[in-house]
């Protein structure tokens, strides 16, 4: 009789994310994963049918984790500035704590797993984000604009800081470390740019 062993599942998931994040999908396989996670291949097959099943299920779980982390303490009814700051703090915290998770998503972005992942993100997340922006437009806090324009101003600057931080350097090899202070400074510029 076999029981679900949460520690083993956790080890499998973490190793899979790390392997995909570092080496991509091409060399990913159940046997290599088993070695990395310190379990037998049979154990992995207890929980997953094959590589596809494993990657689909992990990408859905990761997408949900990211969605929930991003929406923590967030309410679509919030004022624009307050809501965006909650978003920035949540997104920064998730990206910094889950560095590998971001790389994992990046590797999946051009793969067949993308659709499942997007599907998962869509439901909860898009609704909350959509009505938050809609409310801000209705209240006259921001102008209506295409999603791409909004995202590029509202969030891309934050991800740019996180990217600098993860690489340890910004432009011309300047050393860079992320901090709440630098985040707030950038945020203030973004707010000035977006709010009427």
């Amino acid at each position, binding site marked *: 009789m076999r029981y679900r062993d949460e520690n083993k599942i956790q080890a499998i998931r973490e190793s899979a994310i790390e392997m995909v994040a570092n080496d991509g999908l091409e060399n990913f396989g159940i046997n290599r994963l088993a070695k990395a996670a310190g379990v037998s*291949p049979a154990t992995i097959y207890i929980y997953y049918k*094959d590589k596809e099943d494993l990657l689909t299920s992990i990408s859905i779980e990761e997408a949900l984790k990211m969605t929930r982390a991003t929406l923590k303490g967030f309410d679509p009814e919030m004022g624009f500035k307050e809501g965006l700051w909650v978003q920035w703090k949540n997104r920064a915290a998730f990206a910094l704590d889950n560095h590998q998770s971001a790389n994992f998503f990046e590797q999946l972005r051009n793969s067949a797993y993308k659709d499942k992942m997007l599907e998962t993100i869509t439901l909860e997340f898009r609704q909350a984000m959509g009505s938050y922006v809609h409310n801000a437009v209705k209240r006259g806090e921001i102008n209506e604009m295409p999603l791409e324009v909004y995202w590029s101003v509202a969030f891309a600057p934050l991800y740019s800081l996180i990217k600098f931080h993860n690489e340890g350097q910004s432009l011309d090899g300047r050393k860079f470390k992320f901090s709440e202070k630098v985040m707030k400074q950038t945020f203030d510029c973004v707010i000035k740019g977006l709010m009427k």
Partner: protein
Amino acid sequence: MQHVLIFKTNIATPEARSKIAPVLDQQPFIDQWTVDMEDVDCVLRVVAAEPVPDRIIALINASAYECAELED
């Protein structure tokens, strides 16, 4: 209660898979089964109502394919 049974086989091609398919599909105690043909061990994974690995092995062997339980 469902049991997940894991086997190493030599069911390596879609043709091989299609030969064992009717045999496994017919068994009332088997809920679902898959073969990972990408894997070196061509892992057969069976979700069954009863923990009866020997019966699965006998069924696969009877179809002239190798089958051994994969240990944890």
